[in-house]
Structures are given as structure tokens and as C-alpha cells.
């Protein structure tokens, strides 16, 4: 039974793409206010999990459940999930030429019932962009069009900051960032969590311990071949860094599938 007290409750989730099974029974529970890291080898299905939870139409869910505060996410289209408070920071954000960031952000906030007056919106936007050290010119640039890798990641965090989700799924927000940018992004995530009065949960997909040192996750999950195979404290991330997945997955006992 899904636990309504739990922010995110994923149980036995299976998903396929083009009839190829990628997720093979994912179990994961994220309480309110917690940061959970998700680590795992390339191709293990981390981004697929992020897409499956946010409603990408390319993926078919074949079994299992996923609830946000007890609400079944799976029948909902992506826009409705976002309106419930699920946010995805994309590993590879798509460019949309011709659509300015400012128009897009306003449309997004309006869709989520978070519309501000033009003046309030600009004040908010200016503030959040300054926090993320983004140049004001990004406002009138087209969505992700010609953005560098690091600029795209900041723009994703900017959107999270403005939309104030319940659950932020951050798919490698740290990849390709220089050290200063990494701190800025991590600070952005921490501010969002703190600003939510300890309610926002984070599923942070990453390959690196570095961002975890800033963000101090409550739990680290290890993903392999489409499922969570181990969960533990932050020390797990350090062990991965030291030993690699192969070394570690040989040693750590997989979590039971019916957790």
C-alpha cells in the first residue's frame, strides 16, 4: 500500500521503451524534506526512472506504483504531475528556439497556478538569477538555445527555484560544472529545500561524491540494471568513489525487493 505520509513512494516499478524493459522493479521511498542520492553505472536506468516518474510518454509502465503524498502519479500526464509538484532537472535539457526564457517561465508559473504580477515576477526572477550568478541576458535568450553545458544546468536550477516543487528530481545537475558552478548549483538546491520549510524532497542523480559533500544526502541508493540494489548513508557514495560499482556491488548485499 502506498504510504500517504511519504513524499514519494515507488514500489515494484517496471518500465519499458520500445518493448525493451529498462526498469525492473524499482523500490524507493523519499520522506518529506529528505535528499536522496541515486548513483549507478551508465545505462543502468537512472534517467529512465526520472522520466518514468515525470511522465515522459516514450516510456510504458508495465507494473508497479508511484505515488506522491499518496496520489497515484502513473495515470497522469507530465503536465499534471508537474502541477502536483514534481520537477525534473534534465540531464540533457532540450533547446526550444524562438521561445524566450522569460515567456516560458511565466507560462510555466501560470500553468502551475503560481502566476505573479509582471513586476513581482521580474523581481523574483532577477533575485533568483543573481543567486545563481546568471547574466540577465538569459531572460531574453531562447530556452537552452546555444547555452553551454553549465549554463543549461543553472537554468534548470533557476526553474526549480521559481517553481518551488514538492519533489525535485535532479538528473546529474552537477555534470560538466566547474568547481564554482558546482557550489552555486548545490547552494541553489539547498536554498530550495530550506525555503520549502523542510518539505521539499530531492532525488539527486549523480556520478560524483563532490555534490553530495555539499548537499549531505540522507540516503544514497545504488542503481544497477534497472533497480535499486543497495541503499545506505552518505558513506556509500564514498565507497563507490573508492571502489567503483563493480567492486562494491560484489560486496554489498542487495536490498530485498519487497522493502
Amino acid at each position, binding site marked *: 500500500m502506498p504510504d500517504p505520509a511519504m513524499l514519494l513512494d515507488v514500489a515494484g516499478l517496471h518500465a519499458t521503451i520500445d518493448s525493451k524493459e529498462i526498469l525492473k522493479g524499482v523500490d524507493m521511498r523519499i520522506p518529506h524534506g529528505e535528499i536522496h542520492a541515486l548513483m549507478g553505472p551508465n545505462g543502468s536506468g537512472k534517467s529512465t526512472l526520472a522520466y518514468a516518474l*515525470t511522465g515522459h*510518454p516514450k516510456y510504458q509502465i508495465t507494473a508497479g506504483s508511484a505515488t506522491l503524498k499518496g496520489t497515484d502519479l502513473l495515470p497522469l500526464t507530465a*503536465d499534471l504531475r*508537474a502541477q502536483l509538484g514534481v520537477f525534473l532537472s534534465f540531464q540533457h535539457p*532540450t533547446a*526550444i528556439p*524562438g521561445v524566450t526564457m522569460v515567456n*516560458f517561465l511565466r*507560462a510555466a508559473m501560470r500553468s502551475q497556478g503560481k502566476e505573479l504580477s509582471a513586476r513581482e515576477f521580474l523581481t523574483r526572477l532577477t533575485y533568483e538569477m543573481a543567486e545563481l550568478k546568471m547574466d540577465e541576458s538569459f531572460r531574453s535568450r531562447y530556452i537552452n538555445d546555444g547555452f553551454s553545458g553549465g549554463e543549461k544546468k543553472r537554468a534548470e536550477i533557476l526553474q526549480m527555484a521559481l517553481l518551488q516543487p514538492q519533489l525535485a528530481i535532479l538528473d546529474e545537475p552537477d555534470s560538466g560544472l566547474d568547481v564554482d558552478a558546482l557550489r552555486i548549483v548545490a547552494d541553489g538546491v539547498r536554498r530550495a529545500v530550506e525555503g520549502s520549510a523542510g518539505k521539499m524532497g530531492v532525488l539527486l542523480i549523480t556520478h560524483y561524491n563532490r555534490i553530495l559533500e555539499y548537499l549531505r544526502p540522507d540516503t544514497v541508493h545504488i542503481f544497477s540494471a534497472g533497480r535499486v540494489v543497495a541503499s545506505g548513508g552518505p558513506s556509500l557514495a564514498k565507497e563507490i568513489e573508492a571502489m567503483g560499482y563493480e567492486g562494491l556491488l560484489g560486496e554489498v548485499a542487495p536490498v530485498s525487493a519487497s522493502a
Partner: protein
Amino acid sequence: MTQEAVVSGIDSGVVATRAGASPTWLASRRRAAWEAFSTLPWPSSLRDEDWRRTDIAKLDPLRFDPDAGVSTELDSVIAATHDDIAAVAPDAAVIVCDHTGRVQLHNCDALTAQGVIVCSLSEAATRHRELVEQAFDTLPAGQQPLTALWNSLWRDGCFVYVPPSVAANQPVWVIHAAADDRTATFPATCCVLDANASLTLVELHVSPATAQAELLSDTVSHVVLNRNARLDYCVLQDLGQGVWHMATHRVSLEADAHLHFFGATLGSKLQKAYWEALLNGNGAEAHLAGIALAGDRQHLDHQSLQAHKGTDTTSRLLLKTAVRDHARSVYDGLIDVGRTAQRTDAYVQNRNLILSPDAKADSIPRLEIRAHDVRCGHGAAAGPVDDEQRFYLMARGIPAEIADRIIVRGFFEDALGQAPCPEFAALLGPLLDRRLDRILHIGRQES
């Protein structure tokens, strides 16, 4: 009104009446054009390359009424359009022309004070015959059935002449309005810029939005840019859903003349529009851009011509179209480089966004090059809305239809950015948004 309708059609009697009211040179031109019309075969999608994808076999022009009168529908579409112009370009000179042949000039004093001639085309045909003939001569009157029909039957229209070295201090907006079932309208625009002159010209083709009224709109715009003249030229086609719209916009450019043309096609049931730039003089430059949006069963055909004759001429064309439902877009664009046109630099590009599985877009950009030292290219693309773009927006809470609207607007953006007249862009923006809402079935409360 429940008066018994005795609708007259088009016949030689109407042409005789028109000729009788015209100066001699024009009368003989009308008669010759009617002669040509009567002998020319009607466009056939089997026989004529131009009409292969646009079938007007079912259009019988002769059953439309060329003498339709004034109506409240006509006057209200004029008033609404006039208000729209006033909202974005309060200082513009406005010429209102309609299917009855009325021509009203508004706010033209400043132009007149500069020596610019703004008047009805019938007046110009009498008082400025050489200028009108210079313009008319750029397009043979009897070569093609629709232009032949127009040449025999146009009732009245607008004429603008800018004298040498005069930069017109006001934009000229022309409203061509029509209304009512079975009306035939023949909008006429004639514009001559003398050497070193410049002007902004906006041409709006409008009729009530209803699909109930079936109209024939057959229009020709003759534009001549003499040496080093500069014209910013915008055309909007926002006719009702029951209109057959047949249009030729032909601009001739002499040496070093510059044209910036922008066309927006939103309306009509079926349109065939020729957008033509004849780069006759050395160093002439023509930049053409446009957008077209079609839904329901609309059929929009654009045929562009970039004809290079002079040396060192440049032309660009970008047309972006989006089609939905059962709508169809046909684009055929030719860059024609003559033997003498060395160092031509020309590009033609058409991109299509297909918004639903039954919508269709054909795109045939072509090059015909007879000079050896040229740089020419073409591009065409068609495809649906990108799934990843739609998902990206939806992942931010934006519903699918609104996501599509945002993506379509973004798709149009680079073409819109080339509209040479910001006031026109200001008029078009909200109109485009409303049309997108209708085509994407977005309720007003969500917009």
C-alpha cells in the same frame, strides 16, 4: 434584408461597363485582358505545373457577383480593421478600399505635403497614366487566367507614388475589405517609388471570419522600385474561411533598390499567392519572409519567385508554415538566375511544422541558374512538433496544447523577426495568438 436576390455573375457586359468608365488606354487593356481570359484554359492540376497541388477546378469565377454592393458586414469589418490599425499605428496614413470600389483616404496630409501622391487607382489611371502604366507593364495583363480576370474587372484600389529622394514620413496602410456570399472582389494596389525614395507599405486583406460566405478574391499588387529606392512591405491575408484568394504581389527592383517584404497568411479557404521579386537592376536586394498558419480544411499555396537579371543582386526568402487538422500547405519557390546575373547571391528556404497526422505540407524550392558566377541555395524541411520539446514544457506543468502553441510561436519567431515594420508585427502578434488558440482548440480562459 429579404429582397429577392438577383445576383449577376461575371460576363462581357460587366467588362464593357468597366471599360466604359475607364480612360482609353485602360479600357483597351481591360478588353484585351477579357479576351485573353476567355481564350485561356482554366488552371488545371493535371496540365499546369503551377497548379499541380492546388486544384481550383471547382471554382467557377463567373458565378460570383462583380458588382456586389455595400453591406453592414462590409462596413463592420472595415471599422474593426481600422480600429486595429489605430491601436498600433495611430499616425499611419490609411487607405480603405473595398469590393464595391469605394476608396477612402485617411490622414494622408503629411504625405501629400511631401509631394507623395496617394489616391485611388482609377484617379491615378487618368491623372498619372505613365506611372500606372509603368507599374502595370511589369506584369502581362493576359498571360494567366486570374491576372487576366483581375485586369478586366478591378473596380478600384489604391495608388501611391513617392517622388525622387523623398523618404515618406508616414507608413501607408491599405485595407482591402470584402464581405458577403458570392461577392467577387478585385483588390488593387499600385505603388511606385522613384529614385532614392523610401516608404513603408502595409496591405491588409480582410473579410468577416465566417465560413458561410463564399467569396472570390482576386488581387494584384504592382510595385516598382526605381533606382536605390527602399520599400518595407507587409501583407496580411486574413480573409474569412469561405474565401478563394488568388493573389499576385509583384515587385520590380531597379539598380540598388531594396525590398523588405513580409507576408502573413492566416485566412481563406484556399489561396494561391505569388510573391515575386524581379531584381532587374544591378545591385538590387530583396529580402522576403513570411509565415502561414492553416487549420480545418484550409489550403494555402505560396509560390515565390526571386528573378535575378541584374548583376550583383541579392535575394533571400524564408517561409515558415504550420498546418493542423486537414489543412494543407503547398510551397513552390523558384530562384531564377538569368544569363546576365553574375554574382547573384540568393537563398530560398521553407520550413513546415505539421501539427496533426492529417495535415500536409509540400515544399518544392527550385533553382534555375543560367549564369556561372553565382551563390545560390535552397532548403526545405517538414516535421511534427518535437516530442522532447513538448515534454520539456509539459514537465514544467504546461498542458500539451499550450506547449504546442508556445513551440509554434517559437517556430515562427525568426521569420516574424524579419517583419520590417514593428507596427505590423504588433498587429500580427495578437492575431496570430488568437488564430493559434482556435486552431489548437485552446479555450480562451487558458490563454
